[in-house]
């Protein structure tokens, strides 16, 4: 670097060629600062204003160049980011996590050159807060969106799309879920916000999402000059009630005999029926619940197929070259466990455990599997790391990149509720239900799982508080499970069946986990 000497001009380095414009510029700047007359001083010398303008221009270019260099990752090229969310897909129903049925052949093929995080948990078993965590790197208590029904993300916290867009990314959302839309503000920052909502009776499925991605991609190809890196977010809803139980998909997973019961159950049980079941107003019988599980697997097979077709298209367009591609779910689904359906009012494993497979050539690849516990919102820090974009103030506080090697397990804190606005809607939808059926809407459900090495005991605390504004929380339920020995959460270590000594020991663990849950990280 050339610096001006006090009282004199710049001292050119010995190897500086005389016609190097950058170094010449440095000398000119030094002369302007130190007052040394230049070799061409005289009539042709630029005016002071012109030199000042040139100086400002040069400084601006230098700052811009430094900014670009700062924003780019070490490799120099900012990768595309492709984020595909399988809304409501359970972690235990995908082959890469050990499921024995052929639900996800395309995901398995993708995983052969990616990293599979087999123990990923969501911070919230409901679309709005889970996506808000994914887009901010914060727990729900940090971003404050709990219902997404009029409550917004905390002011001053930019979502991932806005951060990437301001860093020069083309940001594209294709969402099948109306929860991920302008309605909740979760698509803020996406310059293309395509809505392909899969709602009952619309006839719209994930095929429409796939076609929209193709349409956008083809248009992008035809536009010359726009070669910004891309952040493409896709939300697919096949595994959300009412399940898309395509006969061919159900047959591929469970055989032809399953098609009839599965399609009948999928047609019979929608969101309202699940609500009535959970509220205890009208229970869905066990046979239908079992058939619903078959339908669900067919829906997983469908979302897998559509994802494969989207990836095929993106690959053909060259958009996957060097890209970070993440396939995940926002939360899981109850299929009769603990008497539950849908994904409300529950923080048990069926709704917390989600699939997560990430490919980022050179960092997350090779077909590796990781059994250390991670969180869905760890993707936030991973994406910013890959793009080289600095984390905005207040964001990413609960998120750690998945590139850490060896990967250390991270504590999980998950929250659901209270759902005050949903209660009003449920009362209207179920006018005959007794008032006690709506008690859960006022509860805060929490789960705490500490960081534990794979194979070691993994205690999990389930805590349900009644929350009334202006009053201290009242504990409604507290349970402790060991996920290693009891992955289905059937034996409550705080329950009456345990011995007194075991209950005392469990109580100690529960207290520690409660403190961890309160601390937040």
């Amino acid at each position, binding site marked *: 670097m050339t610096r001006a000497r006090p009282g004199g001009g710049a001292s050119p380095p010995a190897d500086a060629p005389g016609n190097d414009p950058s170094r010449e510029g440095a000398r000119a700047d030094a002369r302007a600062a130190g007052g040394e007359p230049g070799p061409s001083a005289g009539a042709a010398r630029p005016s002071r204003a012109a030199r000042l303008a040139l100086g400002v221009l040069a400084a601006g270019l230098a700052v811009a160049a430094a900014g670009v260099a700062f924003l780019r990752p070490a490799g120099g090229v900012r990768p595309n980011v492709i984020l595909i969310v399988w809304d409501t897909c359970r972690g235990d129903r995908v082959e890469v996590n050990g499921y024995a049925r052929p639900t996800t052949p395309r995901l398995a093929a993708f995983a052969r050159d990616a990293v599979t995080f087999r123990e990923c948990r969501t911070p919230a078993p409901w679309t709005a807060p889970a996506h808000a965590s994914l887009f901010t790197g914060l727990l729900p208590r940090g971003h*404050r969106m709990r219902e997404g*029904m*009029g*409550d*917004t993300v*905390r*002011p*001053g916290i930019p979502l991932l799309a806005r951060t990437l867009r301001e860093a020069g990314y083309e940001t594209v959302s294709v969402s099948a*879920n*109306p*929860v991920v*839309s*302008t*309605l909740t*503000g979760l698509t*803020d920052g996406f310059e293309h916000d395509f*809505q392909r*909502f899969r*709602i*009952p*009776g*619309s006839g719209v499925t994930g095929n429409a999402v796939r076609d929209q991605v193709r349409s956008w991609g083809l248009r992008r190809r035809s536009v010359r000059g726009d070669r910004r890196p891309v952040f493409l977010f896709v939300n697919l809803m096949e595994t*959300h*009630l009412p399940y898309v139980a395509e006969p061919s998909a159900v047959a591929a997973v469970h055989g032809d005999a399953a098609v009839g019961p599965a399609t009948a159950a999928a047609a019979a049980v*929608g*969101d*309202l029926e699940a*609500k009535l079941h959970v509220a205890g107003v009208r229970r869905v019988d066990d046979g239908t619940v079992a058939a619903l599980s078959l339908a669900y697997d067919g829906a997983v097979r469908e979302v897998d197929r559509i994802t494969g077709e989207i990836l095929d298209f993106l690959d053909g367009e060259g958009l996957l070259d060097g890209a970070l591609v993440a396939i995940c779910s926002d939360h899981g689904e109850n299929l009769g466990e603990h008497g539950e359906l849908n994904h409300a009012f529950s923080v048990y494993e069926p709704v917390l455990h989600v699939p997560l497979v990430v490919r980022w050539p050179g960092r997350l690849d090779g077909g590796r599997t990781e059994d250390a516990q991670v969180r869905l919102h760890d993707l936030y820090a991973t994406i910013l790391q890959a793009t080289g974009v600095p984390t905005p103030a*207040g964001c990413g506080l609960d998120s750690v990149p998945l590139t850490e090697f060896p990967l250390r397990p991270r504590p999980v804190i998950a929250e659901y509720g209270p759902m005050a*606005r*949903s209660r009003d*809607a449920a009362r*209207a*939808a179920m006018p005959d239900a007794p008032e006690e059926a709506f008690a859960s809407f006022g509860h805060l459900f929490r789960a705490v799982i500490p960081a534990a090495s794979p194979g070691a005991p993994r205690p999990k605390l389930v805590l349900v508080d009644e929350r009334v*504004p*202006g009053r201290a929380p009242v504990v409604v339920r507290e349970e402790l499970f060991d996920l290693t020995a009891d992955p289905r959460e059937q034996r409550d270590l705080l329950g009456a069946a345990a011995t007194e000594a075991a209950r005392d020991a469990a109580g100690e663990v529960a207290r520690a986990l409660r403190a961890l849950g309160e601390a937040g990280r």
Partner: protein
Amino acid sequence: MRLSPRFWVVPAVLAVASIAVAGGMRSDAAVESRGPVHAVVSGDLRYEFHAAWRTENLWRRDAAGVWRRVAGPDAAALDGLRARLLAAHGASSLDDIPGIATDELEAFRALGYL
């Protein structure tokens, strides 16, 4: 009839106070809209009206600069900020501010959430 100078004291004080309040409203209150959320920020208070859900949120910025939702809203603060939003929209009540994202809301309802 000639009024005593004392008579003018109260109106004068009120006028000065009104001007000060109005001036304060103009100088430190910012009205902004992003998507369906209309917001008024005044000092460390932020009022939001969600034009899709028709809900109001009140936030207060703490010493660390973090916005925290006010659980039991201060009615006076809420009224003042709401009035500023209405004035900015030329509306006499929140009902006059048109709904936004109505298609999304219908989709949300059709999915069974409402």
